[in-house]
């Protein structure tokens, strides 16, 4: 049986390789943002002694008279119209408690189970990432051409599942599809999962195009090699370049 051994080695931080700098105003807690009292204070700030002081480490965002500091990573904060994927953690009499990577558990009332817009998911893989890395888009349900589908929850929970062959209208109720998933589908799903993890490690925003490009860039490598640091960097660099070309 072949075994692989790796030694720790210091690597250059990725930002140096990108060779660019940020134009944002970065603050840490305790920093004074402004002494002008005309501003309204938003998230991530507090008022102390006539000054507006930052309470999280992140970048300052100013919208007219509102100043807030957007932290690098936080728990999920819900907004109307968001799609979220959750895990049921508790079953109570008339409702379920759902874990959605937010500050408190969410509640799902049983009476809202059959309403349109919500559905229970069958077989698939859940990947948990930071909510700040999921880009806001018009739709979060994507059928990727490689053969799997992906739901990008705004709360950072990503569900990867095999594309169902035919869409049926279920009369009501949820019948779990327990047919075994084919090997080819499973490989696609594993590869997608590893791609998503490598994008997250390199702090790239997640959306359908970036995931797809990353998948294509990873094809020459074996699935298990994708998680190795140097291959991860290579794949994500290629993805970045393709995205820049597409936009530029």
């Amino acid at each position, binding site marked *: 049986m072949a075994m692989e051994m790796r030694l720790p080695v210091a690597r250059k931080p990725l930002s140096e390789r*990108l060779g660019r700098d940020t134009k944002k105003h970065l603050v840490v807690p305790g920093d004074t943002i402004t002494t002008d009292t005309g501003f309204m204070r938003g998230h991530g700030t507090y008022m102390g002694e006539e000054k507006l002081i930052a309470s999280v480490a992140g970048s300052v965002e100013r919208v007219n008279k509102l100043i807030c500091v957007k932290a690098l990573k936080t728990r999920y904060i819900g907004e109307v119209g968001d799609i979220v994927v959750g895990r049921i953690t508790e079953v109570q009499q008339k409702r379920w408690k759902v874990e959605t990577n937010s500050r408190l558990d969410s509640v799902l009332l049983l009476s809202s189970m059959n309403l349109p817009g919500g559905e229970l998911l069958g077989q698939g893989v859940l990947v948990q990432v930071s909510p700040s890395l999921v880009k806001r888009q018009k739709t979060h349900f994507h059928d990727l051409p490689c053969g799997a589908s992906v739901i990008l929850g705004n709360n950072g929970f990503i569900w990867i599942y095999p594309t169902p062959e035919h869409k049926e209208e279920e009369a009501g109720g949820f019948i779990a599809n327990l047919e075994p998933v084919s090997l080819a589908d499973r490989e696609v799903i594993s590869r997608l999962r590893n791609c998503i993890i490598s994008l997250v490690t390199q702090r790239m925003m997640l959306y359908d195009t970036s995931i797809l490009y990353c998948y294509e860039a990873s094809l020459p490598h074996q699935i298990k090699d994708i998680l190795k640091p140097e291959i991860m960097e290579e794949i994500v660099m290629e993805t970045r370049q393709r995205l820049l070309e597409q936009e530029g």
Partner: protein
Amino acid sequence: MAGLELLSDQGYRVDGRRAGELRKIQARMGVFAQADGSAYIEQGNTKALAVVYGPHEASGRAGWGIVWPWELRGSRAERWLGDLRGNGRRASVYTADAQHRISLGVNIRGSRARALPDRALVNCQYSSATFSTGERKRRPHGDRKSCEMGLQLRQTFEAAILTQLHPRSQIDIYVQVLQADGGTYAACVNAATLAVLDAGIPMRDFVCACSAGFVDGTALADLSHVEEAAGGPQLALALLPASGQIALLEMDARLHEDHLERVLEAAAQAARDVHTLLDRVVRQHVREASILLGD
């Protein structure tokens, strides 16, 4: 020990430092991907690791929640991975057999018995690795020193974290000392500050801590183990640098009132120096993440 002078005539300490000089500090944020926030700090030879979870739903079980992987006792402990949060979200959650009577990770979710209605609950656990001191010593989880440290850390962070913003939730801070060479409380506080910042939990300011002692009429900053073991007075100070407010001040030795002012000032100056370093680390981290995410 005969012949060991903590402060030479020329003003040098045992390890060659000056009276007010700090040891070399190196720190990193975001070392654990699974946790909400994590940080690692080295102050000289003292190494501490901090992990933060939260804010999340308040759970019923007190204090315990984590056993570090190197504490797992192979055949004797029965491993039960992942509480209901699933997918290895907690670093390790174990339940041990009746002999150990440590029932960790039995996370009674939804028990709102401990949730506070107007602010967040801060829960700190301190743990010292068996290999952290010169002699390998197993420390059971419930022992006096760990509990006391946990309590002190909790007091420190309740003063700094803006808990009013997250009512009914819980913030868990777990600190592990990997190598103890003096100033463990300070290293824990500094590591925990970085971890809390990494998790994006709002804080009033940094919390920077340092220890100080008093030898031959001179106040020494950042004591190493040798200096602590010599038996002189030791003071631990946790400071919020921007406003100069003290989060925690602790001393358990006898020190003449006249000297207190000087020792306190030495500790405060050292804490401000620590702040300069931590500030640099955090800014670097934020800048790098910002560049990677793009504008």
